[in-house]
């Protein structure tokens, strides 16, 4: 699940920063359903150089 979410966010971020942030928001800002995965997804995004898409609430 963590890998999937990270992949979906990175895929959009490769198109544009805005799309990446929108996807991040769809998973972690607009809903709390996937909060348990957030820290690990953030870690992947950071390691892979996508830290700019990480949003704070």
């Amino acid at each position: 699940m963590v890998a999937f979410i990270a992949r979906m966010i990175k895929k959009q971020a490769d198109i544009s920063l805005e799309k990446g942030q929108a996807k991040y928001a769809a998973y972690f800002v607009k809903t709390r359903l996937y909060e348990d995965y957030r820290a690990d997804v953030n870690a992947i995004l950071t390691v892979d150089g996508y830290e700019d898409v990480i949003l704070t609430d």
Partner: protein
Amino acid sequence: MFIHVNTEGVVIDATEEKLLVGKHPATGKKIILKRKTDEAIGVIGSNDTVRQLAKAAVEVGFYTVQDVIPVAELPEDYEPNKYVYSGGEFSLYEGTAPKDIKTLTEENAALEERADGTDMILDDLLTNVIPSITP
């Protein structure tokens, strides 16, 4: 006439022109090459000595091949992957025809496309459908 055989001796192609065995510069797989110029290629065998010569050749196919062998004629009902060539003779190949790299590449691309479609469906479920029905 020249036949192209794989490591099992299965005749996977036949050509009028003498094509040659080389190595794909990226994958290292043996591939079929065509001479760019006679001077550039020289004599090519089916072993690793062709590596340095492949750069000067024109790549014409992606299927792997062990050797290119001159033959006088093909069986009348020749089809790719139907015969084994061994000891100077053709015999019917009883095994399953191997897939060439081009076919595998196309199949892989189709699978990736299907996987992308599945990803999109799951992504939509997770970000739209499930949040909308979850209190």
